[in-house]
């Protein structure tokens, strides 16, 4: 469970039809750490994540998991090591939480194999880890946004992968649920050593929770490294085209970005 896997992107070019979204990208993902990918809208964050979990074939280059190309690996074998939570997964109408989380066991099951006690245990452990145990028999449709997101993460946990990719796991959640989800992922990383790679919108939460921050701009890496080195005023200007002040977050010691818009800014700063 705590085996560390190397995940690496080499010379990767991605695109749809004649549009190139990511070009010749090289990107090592530090094993056993939390990595956050940030960048402006449509800069290729989600595309990169989809390709890392082999949902999108590369034009050039490859994604290597422990030195093997993910696009050549058997689908189920890959799904036992690397999990992905897409941006908008679909919950079948009326499905219960336990059933949905149980679907995460698919890569561990064979075509005709029966549900095993081990599957039950994995589901129960995932529910407990995400504090959704008491929701087990509820229908997913009835849950609040925050609860639902925890259930989806529980499903990814039931998959028991050592690497977990998440595409904007906090979107549509209010701030308390955002923090709750990120705390949960941090627990998971601390207790199981799961390598976590997530696309995040909120720069400050990304800087606070990530060990490794990747800023993407125009299909290439603008900067990558510890949040303290990456999240600078120059970086925010280059990546988002936005003037800002970056100060030290008094609660965490991590960088905190304060945007400078055209209004409501003291004249001494502009």
């Amino acid at each position: 469970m705590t085996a560390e896997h190397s995940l690496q992107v080499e010379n990767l070019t991605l695109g749809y039809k004649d549009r190139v979204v990511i070009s010749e990208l090289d990107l090592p993902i530090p094993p056993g750490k939390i990595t956050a990918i940030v960048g402006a809208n449509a800069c290729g964050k989600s595309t990169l994540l989809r390709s890392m979990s082999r949902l999108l074939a590369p034009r050039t280059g490859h994604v290597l998991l422990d030195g093997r190309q993910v696009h050549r690996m058997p689908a189920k074998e890959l799904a036992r090591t690397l999990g992905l939570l897409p941006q908008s997964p679909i919950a079948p109408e009326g499905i219960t939480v336990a059933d949905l989380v149980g679907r995460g066991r698919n890569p561990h099951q064979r075509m005709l194999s029966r549900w095993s006690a081990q599957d039950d245990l994995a589901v129960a452990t995932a529910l407990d880890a995400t504090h959704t145990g008491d929701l087990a028999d509820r229908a997913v449709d009835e849950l609040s946004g925050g609860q639902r997101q925890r259930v989806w993460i529980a499903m990814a946990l039931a998959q028991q992968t050592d690497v977990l990719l998440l595409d904007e796991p906090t979107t549509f959640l209010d701030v308390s649920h955002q923090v709750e989800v990120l705390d949960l992922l941090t627990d998971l990383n601390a207790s199981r050593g799961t390598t976590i790679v997530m696309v995040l919108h909120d720069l400050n939460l990304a800087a606070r929770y990530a060990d490794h921050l990747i800023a993407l701009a125009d299909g290439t890496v603008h900067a990558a490294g510890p949040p303290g080195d990456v999240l600078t005023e120059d970086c925010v200007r280059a990546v988002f085209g936005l003037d800002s002040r970056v100060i030290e977050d008094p609660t965490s010691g991590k960088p905190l970005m304060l945007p400078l818009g055209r209004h409501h800014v003291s004249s001494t700063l502009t």
Partner: protein
Amino acid sequence: MTLEAVARGRGRRALRRRTVLTVLGVLVAALYAINLMFGKTFYPPDDIVRVILGERVPGATFTVGTLRLPRATLALLAGVCFGLGGVTFQTMLRNPLASPDIIGISSGASAAAAFAIVTLGLSESATSAFAIAAGLGVALIIYLLSFRDGVAGTRLVLIGIGMAAMLESATSYVLSTASQWDLQEVLRWLTGSLNGTTWGETVPVAIALLLLGPLLLSQGRNLFMLQLGDDMAAALGVRLELTRLLLIVAAVGLIAFATAACGPIAFVAFLAGPIAARIIGPGASLLVPSALVGALLVLVADFAGQYAFSIRYPVGVVTGVLGAPYLIYLLIRTNRAGGSL
């Protein structure tokens, strides 16, 4: 504690599934038996068994052996084929309107079969082959026409409905050129009918089901995962392209074989999945329950069409009357919000 709750909940749902499947199985068997026993003349079960075993029973050998047995068997098999094919498309495209009889695949098979029989004068097996090729061809055309950065369910459904209308008018045209004495046969291609069914029509459907049924069931778990969306399914180890290809070939094959034998029995493919989903509860695999519901629908509708009214109605008219209100309901609901199965 959570572990016990998880195991208990799963046990409860498995019990419900087993119960529903058993009840459906018994109902299908009972309806099949009723279709064999009842009619203008009643034959007791032991007469039926003796006929099936090949003994000569005066009266029963002809009425049951030649008339009722192939007819009831085809009703059962075609119902299973329509149920399986329908729910496969509805689940794969995550849209209850995406059933092969709504999006033109049945219409394609039916138009081709009508053309093969009326215009080309082909034999039964050649007609089946022609209908299957047409079903696959139409499926391919609809798929290509609706492809734009992936296939969206709603676009495919709309293109399919247009396609169905075109193909149905082609069928009507072919039928208008048919001779008067073909009228009974002609009816089959408009709404679906089991009148005058012989083993020659029943056997190809049985063979198709024996070959394609297991293929479809082997993809059952992958189909089940597709309910979560393509990305999620792929992330859970489903090979999307291969799964889709196998599902489409198996489902279209089943629909086309059944359509070539008894015409597009209206709305059975469309209704079986949603009814099965309603009674088996959420989160369960729908292939087997839909197959049973499909068989039940055809057996009930054919029996009712023959004996419940003063005039004999073809089975497709009865299922059409049942299915049309549900179609209207779905269209209204889908218009309000994006519906899914």
